């Protein structure tokens, strides 16, 4: 009800175009009397006057149009209006003798016609009301179609008739109202070939639908979905109507999604390829890395020793490259897990400086560490990842600095409850980076030439460091200019802790004595690998008792029979594989056997990632080919912690 009242109260501007002033006054009076419509009439005496008003952009709910004006006569008056203002709601007023003209006017596009002789207030208001409502509905429909990019058309070739909506014109790229004629449409020139084909197909099949690319009049390519239906008329001819929807954006989104899926698949294949290659590379490196270590323990002359050391250094570099490639490939696809453990920041930084000072000293550089007094000593976070980032940045700073110093500083940025935001800054007096190269230095697989120096390493270190910081919510920033040194810094949040919460550190540095007696079980199905592993371990610990199991089941049997201090577990074995054997040991065997340290031995690099091995019950992973030092260190760590 309220809605109706609202409708009645709405004021509808009406343009009255009438050459006869007496009739104009009469119509104006009828409009005032119209009780169904609240009208506000504007009067124009001629075509020119009306055109002026409409051109100024005034909006009218309806135009009451007399066809005989001083400056325009008959049907031409309507045609001129429709051509110039095709969206206007026009009601034609004719004399009794011109009834036929009125009918033609409606066919041509007028909303209604009124006979002047029969005109009264109720008839006028009824006609206006219906035409305004119809026009409003059509406008809404047109608006909806415009928003949905749907155009429609009707075509009757036998009557040389074509009519299309404004949106149709927009879709085919033709300025509206540069109206399209039926003949033009049927000429079959692009983009109208589509309509001719559709009409021909629908004549045979009744209706057709297809999605296709079209080339618009302005040359643009658009993807459209079209539907066309044919109606057979009583004279045997056909007329057609249809809709056309521009779905280019949807199509492009689909193509984009397809391309993205393809790219993801390619990335996955690449990841698998990299993992597989690294695996293949590691196997022959077993000989190079491992046996050069054994070789060093045999009697060698000076030249031979140097050669062996060169092999060791080169293979370490090669291992570093393989590990970098694996790491960056992994970080591009997966978010790593970050530890939340208590660590002592000054110790971490002192260790870092301890490692790097030799490299700095070799180049005569000063390596400075500065921790602001307000920085908490004990933090909660991932010390290994932090160390990895700092190691990378400091290593780069030393690499690209020929004189002067490299400084590491840590300062407090913010405090929120038990959390602090710390800024880590690495400054050097090195050769710097030109501004145009700054944006590229964090790109993986992008090598930025710096100075005239030969490029060392894989160039992946900064990409890895950036990813690690980004995954923790920070970002490494750089300020540098060629020849003026560099300043790298990043901010990260850490929890604040105390010394009491810090677990006793593992005695990493205490080596297991070479005469230490312990029992170690190698679960490995490959006989030759058994011999090699046993031989390597016996050379390191002469009093160690080395047991060998051919599969997981035998390993379990050994553990049931006798005390064993450590298990080296191959993953892929017959009877019972290493994963299942470890599960049984951890979940089904009784203490203390279920606590025995187990180190996984595998050539699959991915096994070491994301803490998967820990979840599966392993205390660590030794990647094959193992460096004896790495193997010994992992064994020592387990046995020292256990003791």
């Amino acid at each position, binding site marked *: 009800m309220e809605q109706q009242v609202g409708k009645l109260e709405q004021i509808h501007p009406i343009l009255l175009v009438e050459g006869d002033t007496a009739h104009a006054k009469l119509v104006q009076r009828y409009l005032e009397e119209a009780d169904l419509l609240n009208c506000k009439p504007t009067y124009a005496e001629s075509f020119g006057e009306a055109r002026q008003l409409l051109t100024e952009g005034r909006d009218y709910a309806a135009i009451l149009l007399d066809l005989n004006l001083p400056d325009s006569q008959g049907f031409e008056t309507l045609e001129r209006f429709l051509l110039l203002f095709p969206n206007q709601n026009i009601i034609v007023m004719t004399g009794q003798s011109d009834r036929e003209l009125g009918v033609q006017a409606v066919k041509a596009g007028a909303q209604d016609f009124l006979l002047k002789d029969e005109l009264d207030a109720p008839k006028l208001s009824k006609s206006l009301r219906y035409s305004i409502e119809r026009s409003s509905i059509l406008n809404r429909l047109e608006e909806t179609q415009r928003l949905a990019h749907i155009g429609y058309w009707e075509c009757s070739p036998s009557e040389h008739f074509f009519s299309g909506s404004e949106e149709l014109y927009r879709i085919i790229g033709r300025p509206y109202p540069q109206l399209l004629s039926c003949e033009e449409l049927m000429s079959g020139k692009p983009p109208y070939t589509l309509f001719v084909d559709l009409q021909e197909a629908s004549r045979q099949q009744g209706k057709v639908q297809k999605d296709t690319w079209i080339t618009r009049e302005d040359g643009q390519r658009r993807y459209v979905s079209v539907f066309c239906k044919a109606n057979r008329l009583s004279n045997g001819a056909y007329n057609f109507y249809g809709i056309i929807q521009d779905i280019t954006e949807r199509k492009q989104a689909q193509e984009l999604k397809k391309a993205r899926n393809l790219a993801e698949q390619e990335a996955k294949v690449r990841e698998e390829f990299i993992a597989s290659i690294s695996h*293949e590379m590691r*196997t*022959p490196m*077993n*000989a190079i890395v*491992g*046996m050069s270590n*054994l*070789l060093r323990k*045999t009697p060698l002359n000076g030249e031979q020793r140097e050669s062996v050391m060169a092999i060791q250094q080169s293979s370490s570099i090669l291992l570093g490259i393989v590990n970098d490639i694996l790491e960056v490939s992994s970080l591009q696809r997966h978010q790593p897990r970050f530890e939340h453990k208590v660590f002592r920041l000054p110790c971490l930084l002192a260790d870092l400086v301890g490692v790097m000072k030799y490299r700095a000293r070799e180049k005569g550089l000063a390596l400075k560490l500065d921790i602001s007094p307000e920085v908490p000593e004990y933090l909660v976070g991932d010390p290994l990842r932090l160390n990895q980032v700092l190691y990378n940045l400091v290593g780069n700073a030393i690499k690209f600095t020929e004189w002067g110093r490299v400084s590491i500083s840590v300062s407090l940025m913010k405090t929120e409850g038990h959390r602090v935001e710390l800024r880590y800054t690495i400054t050097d007096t090195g050769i710097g980076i030109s501004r145009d190269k700054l944006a590229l230095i964090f790109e993986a697989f992008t090598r930025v030439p710096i100075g005239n120096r030969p490029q060392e390493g894989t160039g992946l270190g900064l990409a890895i460091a950036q990813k690690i910081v980004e995954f923790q919510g920070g970002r490494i920033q750089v300020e540098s200019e060629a020849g003026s040194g560099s300043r790298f810094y990043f901010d990260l949040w850490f929890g604040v802790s105390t010394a009491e919460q810090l677990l006793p550190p593992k005695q990493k540095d205490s080596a297991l004595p070479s005469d230490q007696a312990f029992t170690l079980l190698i679960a490995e*199905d*490959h*006989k*030759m*690998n058994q*011999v*090699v592993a046993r*031989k*390597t371990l016996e*050379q390191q610990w002469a009093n160690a008792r080395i047991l060998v199991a051919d599969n997981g089941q035998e390993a379990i049997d050994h553990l049931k029979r006798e005390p064993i201090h450590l298990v080296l577990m191959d993953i*892929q074995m*017959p009877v019972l594989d290493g994963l299942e054997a470890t599960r049984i040991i951890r979940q089904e065997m009784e203490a203390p056997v279920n606590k025995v340290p187990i180190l996984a031995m595998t050539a699959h690099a991915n096994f070491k990632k994301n803490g998967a091995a820990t979840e599966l019950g392993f205390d660590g992973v030794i990647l094959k080919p193992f460096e004896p030092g790495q193997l010994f260190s992992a064994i020592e760590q387990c046995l020292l912690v256990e003791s």
Partner: protein
Amino acid sequence: MKKEVQLNTSYLDQMSGHDPATRLELLLLLAEELRTRPPSMRQCWEKQDLPALRRLSHHYKSTLPFTGCGPLIDANRKLEERLKESPQSLEIPLLLLQIEKASAAILLQVEALIRQASSTR
């Protein structure tokens, strides 16, 4: 293929730590592998037990570096790949044949080394 099937013991020598006893032990194990593994693989193929064939090929991969024989290592690697990615590949029986022939040729050379090593002990 025939010309390239040559035993190269440099890897085996290194892995033995240049200890003659360990070297002989590894040679004996290698001979055993070369003797028994290809027939087992052939059996799996004839039974069309492809998962078992793939397991044997994977295991053989750890053995073959001790032969230092590139074509043999390559043929076995390809076999494992084909079994993983395209088990219907017509290349599989051909690769198996290559592995059998190359293994037999290498076995003769390994046995000669064993005889030589045993006589010097």
